[in-house]
C-alpha cells in the first residue's frame, strides 16, 4: 500500500528532522560541514566552513533519511514509486522541521536578538550557514528543497542498486572471486606455512619499529595514549569481560600505579629518586595489592557490589590526593612534578620515539599475558563464573579466589598503565585520575567487543585515536560516546568484534587424523 510507504517516510522524516534541528541547536552543523571539508582536504577548524561543505553535509543527511525510509518501507511489490514516495516524504518532513527551526532563528537574527544567552552554540554565523547565507524565508525554503531532493534521489538510487541485477551480480561476482582467492588452496598453503607467519610477524615488527620514527611528536603522543588505553582495556577486560564482575572505579588502580611510581622517583615531596625499572615494578605491585585488598571483603558477595565499592574507592583516592591533608605526602592538588623518565644502562631515553617503543613493548607484554590466560584453566574458570557462579562453584572452582586473582591482575595492568602515563608526562596530579578515565575504558571495552582482545584494540583506537584525528568534534565527544553506546547496545550488544569460543573438538580430531600416516 502506498499509504504505508508515505507513513514510514513521514515517521523517518520526523526523526531525522529532529536530529538535524538538534544538531543545529548544539552547533554541530558547523562541525559537520567542517568534517566534510576535512574529507576534501580543506582544514577549517577555526573559521566557519564554506557553504559548499554545509550543503554536502545536508545532502548526506537527506540521503541518509531517504535510504532509511526506503529500507523501512520495503515490502512486496518493491516499486520505484514506493521508494521515491518514502524517500521524498522523509526528506520533505525533515526539511520542513529544519526549515521551521532555521526560519525562527533567522528571523531572530534579523531582528538583532541573540539567542546565545540560552543556546550558546547558536551563533549568528552558524544560523547564517544553516540558511545558506540567504534571507530567512529563501534560506529555509532552500533547506527544504535540498533535503527533499536528496532524500528522493537517494531512495531512488538505493532502489536502482537493489533491483538491478547487473549491479548486484557484478558486486556479488567480485566478492565471490575475492573470497575464492582467499580460500583457495594456494593461498591457504602460503598463509599456513610457518614462513608466511614469520614473515607476517617480521612485517608487524618492522612497522612497529619504523612507524614511531616517522610519526613525529604529536602522533607519538596520540598513539602513546592509545597504547596506554589498550593496556587499561585489556586489564579491565579480565575482571569485567571474562570474570563478569563490573568495576566502575577502575581509575583508582591507575592512580595507585601512577602515584606510587611518581612518589618513588620524583625529587619532591620525598626525594626518593629511585631507579625507573624498580619503581615501575613497585607501581605495578602496589596497584595489584590494592586490587587484592579491595576485593577481599566484597568478592565473596554476588551482585554489583564490586561496581559500587570500586566507584567509591576511586573517588576516595582522587579526593584524598587533592586534599590538603595529604599534601605533605602526595604533593596535594598541585600534583607531582619531575617524575623520572626511563633509563637503560645509565642512559636515559625520554624522547617521544623512545617512549613510544616502551609503550609498544608494554602493550605487547600485556597482550601476550592476556592471550595466554584467555583459554587457560584459569581463564575458563573466570568465564564459568561469569556465566553461572553457582554451578561454577559446584564444579570445583573456588569462585572467591578466582575473582580475587582476576581483580588483582586487572589492577596490576591498570597500575602499569598509570606508571607509563605518569612517566611519559613527567607529571601526575589528582585531575589525571578523574572518573572519566574509568568511563572511557568501560566504553572502549564495550564498543570493541567485551571479552575479546582484538576488540579492545579496536575500541581503544576508535575511542582514543579517532577523536584526536577528528579534533573538530572535541566538544561533542561525550555526546557521541553516549549515542555510540546506546546504538551499540541496541544493534550490536556484543561489540564490534564479538568474542568467539575456541574450536577444540574438531582441531583435536584433525590433528590426530593428520598424525596417522
Amino acid at each position, binding site marked *: 500500500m502506498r499509504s504505508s510507504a508515505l507513513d514510514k517516510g513521514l515517521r523517518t522524516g520526523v526523526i531525522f528532522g529532529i536530529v538535524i534541528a538538534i544538531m543545529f541547536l548544539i552547533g554541530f552543523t558547523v562541525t559537520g560541514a567542517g568534517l566534510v571539508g576535512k574529507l576534501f582536504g580543506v582544514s577549517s577548524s577555526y573559521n566557519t566552513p564554506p557553504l559548499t561543505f554545509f550543503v554536502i553535509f545536508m545532502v548526506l543527511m537527506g540521503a541518509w533519511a531517504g535510504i532509511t525510509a526506503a529500507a523501512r518501507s520495503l515490502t512486496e511489490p518493491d516499486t520505484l514509486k514506493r521508494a521515491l514516495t518514502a524517500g521524498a516524504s522523509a526528506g520533505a518532513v525533515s526539511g520542513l522541521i529544519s526549515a521551521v527551526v532555521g526560519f525562527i532563528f533567522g528571523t531572530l537574527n534579523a531582528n538583532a536578538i541573540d539567542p546565545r544567552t540560552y543556546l550558546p552554540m547558536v551563533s549568528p554565523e552558524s544560523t547564517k550557514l544553516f540558511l545558506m547565507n540567504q534571507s530567512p524565508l529563501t534560506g529555509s525554503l532552500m533547506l527544504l528543497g535540498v533535503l527533499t531532493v536528496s532524500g528522493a534521489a537517494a531512495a531512488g538510487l538505493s532502489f536502482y542498486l537493489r533491483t538491478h541485477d547487473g549491479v548486484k551480480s557484478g558486486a556479488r561476482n567480485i566478492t565471490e572471486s575475492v573470497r575464492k582467492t582467499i580460500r583457495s588452496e594456494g593461498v591457504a598453503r602460503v598463509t599456513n606455512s610457518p614462513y608466511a607467519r614469520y614473515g607476517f610477524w617480521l612485517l608487524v615488527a618492522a612497522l612497529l619499529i619504523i612507524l614511531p620514527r616517522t610519526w613525529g611528536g604529536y602522533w607519538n603522543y596520540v598513539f602513546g595514549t592509545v597504547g596506554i588505553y589498550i593496556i587499561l582495556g585489556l586489564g579491565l577486560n579480565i575482571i569485567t569481560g571474562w570474570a563478569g564482575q563490573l568495576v566502575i572505579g577502575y581509575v583508582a588502580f591507575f592512580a595507585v600505579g601512577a602515584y606510587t611510581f611518581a612518589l618513588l622517583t620524583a625529587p619532591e615531596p620525598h626525594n626518593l629518586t629511585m631507579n625507573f625499572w624498580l619503581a615501575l615494578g613497585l607501581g605495578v605491585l602496589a596497584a595489584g595489592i590494592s586490587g587484592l585488598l579491595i576485593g577481599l571483603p566484597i568478592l565473596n558477595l554476588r551482585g554489583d557490589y564490586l561496581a559500587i565499592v570500586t566507584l567509591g574507592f576511586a573517588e576516595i583516592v582522587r579526593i584524598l590526593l587533592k586534599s590538603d591533608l595529604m599534601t605533605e605526602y602526595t604533593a596535594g592538588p598541585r600534583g607531582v612534578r619531575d617524575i623520572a623518565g626511563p633509563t637503560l644502562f645509565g642512559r636515559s631515553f625520554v624522547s617521544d620515539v623512545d617512549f613510544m617503543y616502551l609503550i609498544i613493548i608494554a602493550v605487547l607484554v600485556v597482550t601476550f*599475558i592476556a592471550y*595466554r*590466560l584467555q583459554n*587457560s*584453566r*584459569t*581463564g*575458563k*574458570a573466570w*568465564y*564459568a563464573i561469569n*556465566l*553461572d557462579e*553457582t*554451578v*561454577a*562453584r*559446584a*564444579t*570445583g*572452582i*573456588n*569462585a572467591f579466589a578466582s575473582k580475587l*586473582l582476576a581483580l588483582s*591482575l586487572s589492577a596490576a595492568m591498570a597500575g602499569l598503565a598509570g606508571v607509563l602515563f605518569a612517566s611519559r608526562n613527567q607529571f601526575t596530579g589528582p585531575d589525571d585520575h578523574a572518573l572519566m578515565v574509568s568511563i572511557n575504558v568501560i566504553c572502549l571495552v564495550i564498543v570493541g567487543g567485551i571479552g575479546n582482545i582484538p576488540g579492545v584494540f579496536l575500541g581503544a583506537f576508535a575511542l582514543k585515536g579517532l577523536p584526536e584525528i577528528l579534533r573538530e568534534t572535541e566538544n561533542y565527544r561525550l555526546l557521541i560516546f553516549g549515542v555510540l553506546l546506546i546504538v551499540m547496545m541496541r544493534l550490536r550488544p556484543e561489540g564490534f568484534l564479538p568474542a568467539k*569460543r*575456541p*574450536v*577444540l*573438538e*574438531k582441531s*583435536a*580430531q584433525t590433528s590426530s587424523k593428520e598424525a596417522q600416516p
Partner: protein
Amino acid sequence: MTTCIETKQVSKIFGGLTAVNTVDVVVPEHAIASIIGPNGAGKTTLFNCISGYYVPEQGQIEFFGNAIQGQPTYKVADMGIARTYQNIRLFGDMTAIENVIVGQYPRFKANWVDAILSTRRERDEAKQAIEEARRLLKFVGLEGLGDTLARNLPYGAQRRLEIARALASKPRLLLLDEPTAGMNPQETDTMTHFIRNLRDELGITILLIEHDMRVVMGISDQISVLDYGTKIAEGKPKEIQSNQRVIEAYLGPDVTSLTKKYQLRKKQRHDATR
C-alpha cells in the same frame, strides 16, 4: 560394604519453615539410591545440603567417613561429589567440550603463572583435558557436537552434556536431580540404561531425585521417601510400593495405583509450569 554418603539427623530451616527435618539417609558404595516425595518435600534442599550450597542447621553429613557439612561447595566438589540440576544449568555461552573441560577443573593443578609461562604442566594438562573431554562426549553420545555452543544443543543432549560435565571431575558420588524430567518414554528408557551403565561401568555411587516411578522402581537399590521434610519410609522398591504409610500419607488413601497418581501429579505439574 563401605558407606558412601550418610546424612545424620540433618535439618535445614528457612525462617519458620523446616525444609529438611532430621533426615537420615545412608547410601552404600556402588548403590543407586533414590529420593522421592511430592513437590516441596525437601528433596532438592537435601541435595543442596550435600553439595555444600546450604549449611544444615543441625546434623552431620559424612562422605566416606569425613564430615562435609559446612564445607564450601568447591571443596565438596573437589572431594568427589558432582551433581546435575533439576532445570539444566550449563555454561550456555561455552561450547559443549568447554563445559566438559571446566568440569575437570578439580583434577588439574596448573595455575595462572603456569598459563602465562606455558609450562610443561600447563601444556600437558590442557592436552589431557581435551582428550578426556572428547572421550566423555563420546561416552554420553555427543561426539561431533563438541564445538556447538551448549545453549544451542537440543534438550536431551543438554541433559547428557550436564552429566558429562559432572563425570569429568571423576566423582565418587553423583547427585542427579530429576534426570528424566521433560523426556518422552523412549528418552527416559535410554536415560535409565545410561544411569545404570554409569554405576556398572564406572563404579560411581548414584543418588537421584526422580518423579517418574517407572524409572525409580526400575533402577533403585533403595528408596527414601520424604514428605514435608521428614523421611517417612525407606527400603527396597517392593517395600515402598506396598508401604501403607507412603500410599496414605503421601499419595492419598483413595488411590489404587501409585503410578497412576504419580502420572497425574506429574501432568498437573507439567501443565502448571507451562
